[in-house]
């Protein structure tokens, strides 16, 4: 009998601060797993964002730069241009990437910077108390939309994976989820694929991961995962929106 599943080497053996059932932990493991697969742990520089993902320097056993709110793709651009031999990834939430950092992500993607962006979309600002984010679903109640998001007043949620896929500099753009074992296995595959693009120097790669936020949604962890499948996936369809590696 041998051990067939163990903690990835790139993930420190520490307790995370995430709430029970938060998908961040699962996504952290998938990213660490991909780092191990390509053997880039020693040459990786991660760029952390602001939000619940801010503490990733405490969880990943790689070098990490902490970027100002929303500026992770700009910081990653500088890191990659100064050290092109390094593997550079950013890990950002939706309040960070799709709100305050919209300008940075769009221009970094459009320039085709050779970095990988992991975008965790949980339709709310997790760390600051569950405020409405650009990705909040229409009708969803948050602390700043107590009557539900109003489409006429607040607009519709942004679909970042589709938006970025239109840009010339983007080589790979996909959306995945980790709410069920089936979706999780696909997420693992697409995160590896996105990392492969950078390892082979093929350009900007982007993976949006749908996640639950049980605490701010006011549901149990199991109800949270069920909501990802029932409400988020119909609006944020899973799939690969651009793949220039296999034309």
């Amino acid at each position, binding site marked *: *009998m*041998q*051990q*067939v*599943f*163990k*903690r990835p080497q790139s*993930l420190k053996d520490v*307790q*995370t601060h*995430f*709430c*029970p*059932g*938060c*998908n*961040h*932990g*699962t996504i952290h*493991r998938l990213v660490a797993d991909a780092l191990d697969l390509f053997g880039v742990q020693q040459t990786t520089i991660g760029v952390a964002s602001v939000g619940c993902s801010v503490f990733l320097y405490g969880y990943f056993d790689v070098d990490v730069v902490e970027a100002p709110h929303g500026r992770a793709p700009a910081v990653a651009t500088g890191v990659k241009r100064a050290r092109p031999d390094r593997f550079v990834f950013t890990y950002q939430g939706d309040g960070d990437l799709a709100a305050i950092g919209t300008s940075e992500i769009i221009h970094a993607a459009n320039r085709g910077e050779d970095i990988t962006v992991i975008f965790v979309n949980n339709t709310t600002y997790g760390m600051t108390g569950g405020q409405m984010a650009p990705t909040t679903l229409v009708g969803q109640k948050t602390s700043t939309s107590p009557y539900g998001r109003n489409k006429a007043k607040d607009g519709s949620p942004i679909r970042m994976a589709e938006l970025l896929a239109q840009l010339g500099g983007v080589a790979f753009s996909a959306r995945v989820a*980790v709410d*069920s*074992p089936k979706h*999780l*296995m696909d997420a*693992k595959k697409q995160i590896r694929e996105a990392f492969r693009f950078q390892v082979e120097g093929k350009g900007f790669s982007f993976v949006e991961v749908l996640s639950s936020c*049980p605490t701010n949604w006011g549901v*149990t*962890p*199991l109800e949270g*995962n069920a909501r990802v499948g029932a409400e988020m996936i119909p609006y944020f369809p899973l799939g690969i929106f651009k793949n220039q590696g296999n034309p």
Partner: protein
Amino acid sequence: MARIEIDESRCKGCGICTIACPKKLITLCDKVNIQGYTPAEALNQEQCTGCALCAEICPDVAIIVFK
């Protein structure tokens, strides 16, 4: 024969593994762990196939699998 080991002190009792297991072998126990959560346990593992889906989906990487 396969088996899993759950790190009780690391588990936050979210219960996601209980529905990920195809054989439904994992349940939440009544004991409270050091963090104040009721951790998952798998008492009857004869039917475990070592598919590792519970470990794959665990947000706290609290499960290791042997096969």
